[in-house]
């Protein structure tokens, strides 16, 4: 049972939610782009720089040891968060994009060749399109696209029938950032594995909002970002099964990822370090683990339930607006509402909402092929976090009515 007191208490922990924008209390509905940060995450960054700051995995001195301990404890925390079987399978990256590029680069070097095929879906974020286009260009493999219908639901069955000996990888989003569709990744993975095909899941929009269990999913790779789940920017995770991470070539060379270096030959460190070249984002990673603890204190199931309430309320409330057209109406959806107002350009609506203190995202949301599919220039997207409220959704509805009056 989620009470008013719960919601008030949650909101009170986010300093930015107490601020005003353009003279109005901030209504923040751009959580799919980046979430806000609770005080304890902000404090953990300050704590790092005032008490722990030192390089990791290198020094024998006390501070370096403490920083290393905190950094590695963060790895354990993140492994626990996604139920990874061992913490060595959790690689810290700059974010989802970096995680996907790590795998794409390795695959193009070692596992893709001319004549091979790999699949992505019609609703991918550019970050799960472009690295694979580059990998296919380098290797000569062919990139194939799982189609979707006009509700934003993938045609899963027909695509699964096309998988075969040529298929070397499937890279698919767990939740669509522009449509909100939750894809049946577990079923796709099971079928792919029956044919010996590995699957990478882009979990950037899933990890902040629902229980992710990489053992239950049985995915080969799972990628997500810290900044969308209350942690600092420049943090992310690449989870991979040990067998894959051990055979995948390293992405970048540098410090920390080596075992021995001579001018003739370098041997690489073991996982996870093989994929963490250079000094990592130490304070970011430590704060990331604080964000995970914050989520666990509230409970990811509670967060999911609260966001489902917000989605249902927003769907009902916004449907009352005449001339609204929802983009992305799949049965299984996360708390993202993408829409258009008849006769109004999304950009104009976004500008006017901003003047009213309401932050939404407008445009193509880094999914231009999705906009091309629907033959639209972009959408207005309200994406919710558990700290949003029904009152804020009412303000959005009023704001949209006002924008309509001004624009039409």
């Amino acid at each position, binding site marked *: 049972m989620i009470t008013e007191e719960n919601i008030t208490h949650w909101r009170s922990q986010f300093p930015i939610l107490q601020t005003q924008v*353009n003279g109005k209390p901030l209504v923040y509905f751009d959580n799919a782009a980046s979430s806000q940060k609770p005080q304890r995450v902000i404090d953990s960054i300050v704590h790092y720089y005032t008490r722990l700051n030192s390089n990791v995995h290198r020094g024998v001195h006390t501070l370096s040891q403490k920083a290393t301990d905190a950094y590695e404890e963060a790895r354990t925390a993140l492994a626990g968060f996604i139920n990874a079987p061992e913490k060595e399978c959790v690689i810290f990256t700059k974010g989802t994009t970096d995680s996907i590029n790590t795998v794409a680069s390795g695959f193009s070097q070692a596992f893709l060749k001319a004549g091979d095929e790999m699949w992505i879906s019609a609703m991918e974020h550019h970050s799960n399109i472009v690295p694979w286009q580059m990998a296919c260009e380098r290797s000569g493999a062919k990139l194939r696209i799982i189609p979707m219908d006009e509700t934003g639901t993938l045609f899963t069955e027909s695509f699964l029938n096309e998988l075969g000996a040529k298929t070397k990888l499937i890279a698919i989003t767990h939740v669509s950032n522009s449509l909100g569709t939750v894809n049946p990744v577990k079923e796709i993975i099971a079928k792919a594995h029956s044919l010996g095909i590995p699957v990478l899941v882009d979990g950037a929009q899933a990890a902040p909002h629902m229980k992710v269990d990489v053992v239950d999913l049985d995915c080969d790779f799972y990628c997500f970002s810290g900044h969308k789940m209350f942690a600092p920017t420049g943090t992310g995770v690449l989870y991979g099964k040990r067998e894959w991470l051990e055979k995948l070539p390293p992405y970048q060379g540098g410090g920390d990822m080596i075992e021995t270096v001579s001018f003739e030959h370098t041997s690489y460190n073991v996982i996870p370090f093989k994929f963490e070249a250079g000094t990592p984002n130490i304070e970011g990673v430590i704060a990331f683990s604080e964000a995970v603890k914050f989520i666990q204190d509230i409970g990811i199931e509670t967060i999911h339930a609260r966001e489902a309430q917000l989605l249902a309320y927003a769907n009902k409330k916004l449907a009352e607006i005449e001339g609204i057209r929802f983009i992305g109406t799949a049965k299984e959806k996360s708390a993202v509402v993408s829409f258009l107002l008849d006769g109004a350009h999304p*950009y*104009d609506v*976004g*500008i*006017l909402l901003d*003047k009213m203190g309401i932050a939404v995202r407008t*445009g193509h949301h880094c999914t231009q092929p999705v906009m091309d599919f629907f033959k639209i*220039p*972009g959408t207005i997207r309200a994406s919710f976090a558990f700290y949003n409220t029904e009152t804020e959704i009412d303000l959005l509805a009023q704001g949209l009515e006002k924008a309509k009056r001004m624009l039409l």
Partner: protein
Amino acid sequence: MSTISEIEDEIREDFSLFEDWEERYNYIIDLGKDLPLIESSKKTEERIIKGCQSRVWLNAELREGKVYFTADSDAVITKGIIALLIRVLSGHKAEEIARAELHFIDDIGLKEHLSPTRSNGLVSMINYMKNYAARYAESNA
């Protein structure tokens, strides 16, 4: 005809009458709605200035030593701001356009539209207008 800075002053005066953002934006939206800014035959792919979110078409022509601009956008607020820019710059000598600093944009509270995050093509448009004029002024010098 008024100089560029005189027209900027006129616009500043118009905007000083508005009491809040709503009045300001209603005015800009009306400008955007009212003006047929470009011939449809000129709305070609080559004349498009790609912004991330709203598209802008721009055409520049020289007549008797002066530069004339016409433009359009698919977003009405962008179009309204374009109408202001055209009112200020179009029909002046290339040298004057190239030198114009366009302080009025800040003064009437529209600076935010020129931030790169707005991705509306306006910054590219202003650069294009001024570069076009600068190139012409140079070749004429």
